[in-house]
């Protein structure tokens, strides 16, 4: 059990801080401070099935986020009525945001309606998995690992290519995308590799890396401030402790900032996916 709960508490885990304390009793300024590293995102699994399947802290965080999504969607949509109650209103507000502010800004209304389940799936999955980064005791976003961003980016890629092929036929779609009309023939030597790279490779890669890098950076930022605060309050001597007030205030500000980033990244991922799908339909 200890093996299970210790990683659960993660960076807020007092025992790990006390472990640091114990390791360096009476440590001077700087020497006892634990700074975050990329290793934290790859904790030891606490549950193994067979030789290849491992279940670690981040998987648990992921499951909690998914559970929250399922629960909230169920609560919001279980009894849909013409005159909505509070739960349904909130649910409609959230889905309506994706519908009107994301899907409909990038596609015609009928198409936005058809793609809404897909876009909403991306938005709410990314949002829920991002927000675990600022929730106490979870304190890490599993989107800092490549798997989910990559899967979603691949889905987005498949969706917009499929839309392009459906709208224009495979030949036309790829020809139009790779050989932009109106350019002199000689320019294709330059344009085609660029278009290939930007449309079919960089789009999904940037979707994936943007999200992942934001979550890694956010985790480091928050962890650094939490660690500094705990170090300054618990280990620093004299007046230096008062600096901890500053760092804890900064922690609060950065928590708010990370909530904003979590929402923003979900919004950007969903919006760019919509835009790519919309462009695939329009492209000529």
């Amino acid at each position: 059990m200890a093996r299970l709960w210790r990683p659960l508490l993660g960076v807020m885990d007092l025992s790990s801080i006390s472990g640091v304390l114990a390791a360096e009793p009476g440590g001077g300024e700087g020497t006892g401070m634990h700074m975050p590293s990329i290793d934290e995102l790859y904790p030891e699994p606490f549950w193994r099935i067979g030789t290849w399947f491992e279940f670690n802290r981040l998987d648990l965080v992921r499951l909690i986020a998914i559970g929250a999504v399922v629960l909230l969607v169920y609560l919001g949509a279980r009894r849909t009525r013409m005159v909505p109650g509070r739960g349904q209103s909130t649910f409609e507000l959230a889905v309506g945001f994706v519908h009107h502010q994301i899907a409909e800004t990038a596609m015609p209304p009928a198409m936005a309606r058809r793609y809404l389940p897909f876009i909403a799936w991306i938005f709410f999955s990314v949002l829920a998995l991002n927000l675990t980064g600022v929730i106490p005791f979870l304190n890490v976003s599993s989107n800092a690992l490549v798997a989910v961003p990559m899967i979603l980016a691949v889905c987005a890629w498949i969706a917009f290519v499929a839309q392009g092929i459906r709208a224009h036929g495979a030949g036309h779609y790829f020809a139009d995308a790779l050989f932009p009309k109106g350019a002199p023939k000689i320019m294709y030597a330059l344009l085609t590799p660029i278009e290939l790279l930007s449309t079919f490779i960089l789009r999904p890669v940037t979707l994936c890396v943007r999200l992942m890098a934001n979550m890694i950076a956010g985790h480091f930022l928050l962890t650094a401030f939490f660690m500094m605060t705990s170090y300054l309050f618990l280990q620093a001597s004299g007046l230096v402790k008062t600096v901890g007030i500053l760092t804890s205030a900064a922690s609060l500000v950065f928590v708010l900032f990370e909530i904003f980033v979590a929402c923003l990244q979900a919004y950007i991922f969903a919006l760019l996916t919509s835009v790519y799908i919309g462009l695939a339909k329009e492209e000529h």
Partner: protein
Amino acid sequence: MWLASAPEGIGLFVPPWDEVIISLICLAITALAVAKYGVPRYLEVLDKRALAIEGGIKRAEEAEAEIAAIRAGLEGEKEAARVEAAKVREDARADAAAILAEAKTKAGEEARRIQESAQRQIDSERRSAEVSLRQDLGTLATDLAEKIVGESLKDSALASRVIDRFLADLESQTTAGKGA
């Protein structure tokens, strides 16, 4: 420490298989919850509401049109009633004038008739009175003359001559008086 060693470099972007499988399972669950359950219900209620609103607007428009039609009908009826009332009043006034004129005419005729018949009666009565007066006068005069002349005039032939002379005088006097 519980920390495992992290992958380095490009290894960060190569997810291990178990990671991919757990992620796929998680995303499949959210796909079921959001795309298969939540969003369709959202769209369904959105459509229902749109229909209801549309229906409501249509019903309101129909009701409004109906009210407008009824109001127009009422307005027409009111106008017709006003016209009819005016006509009735006009007719009544005309009738009254006609009746009055007729009554006046009748009354005038009646008056004239009464006057004429009265005149006739007066004339006839005067004539009969004249005749009767003339007779009475004759008799009275005779009687008087008889009494005055008395028995001296017993001779009837004489008497009738005197009478005739008297009457002739009277006659001439009357005609002279008339002529005058």
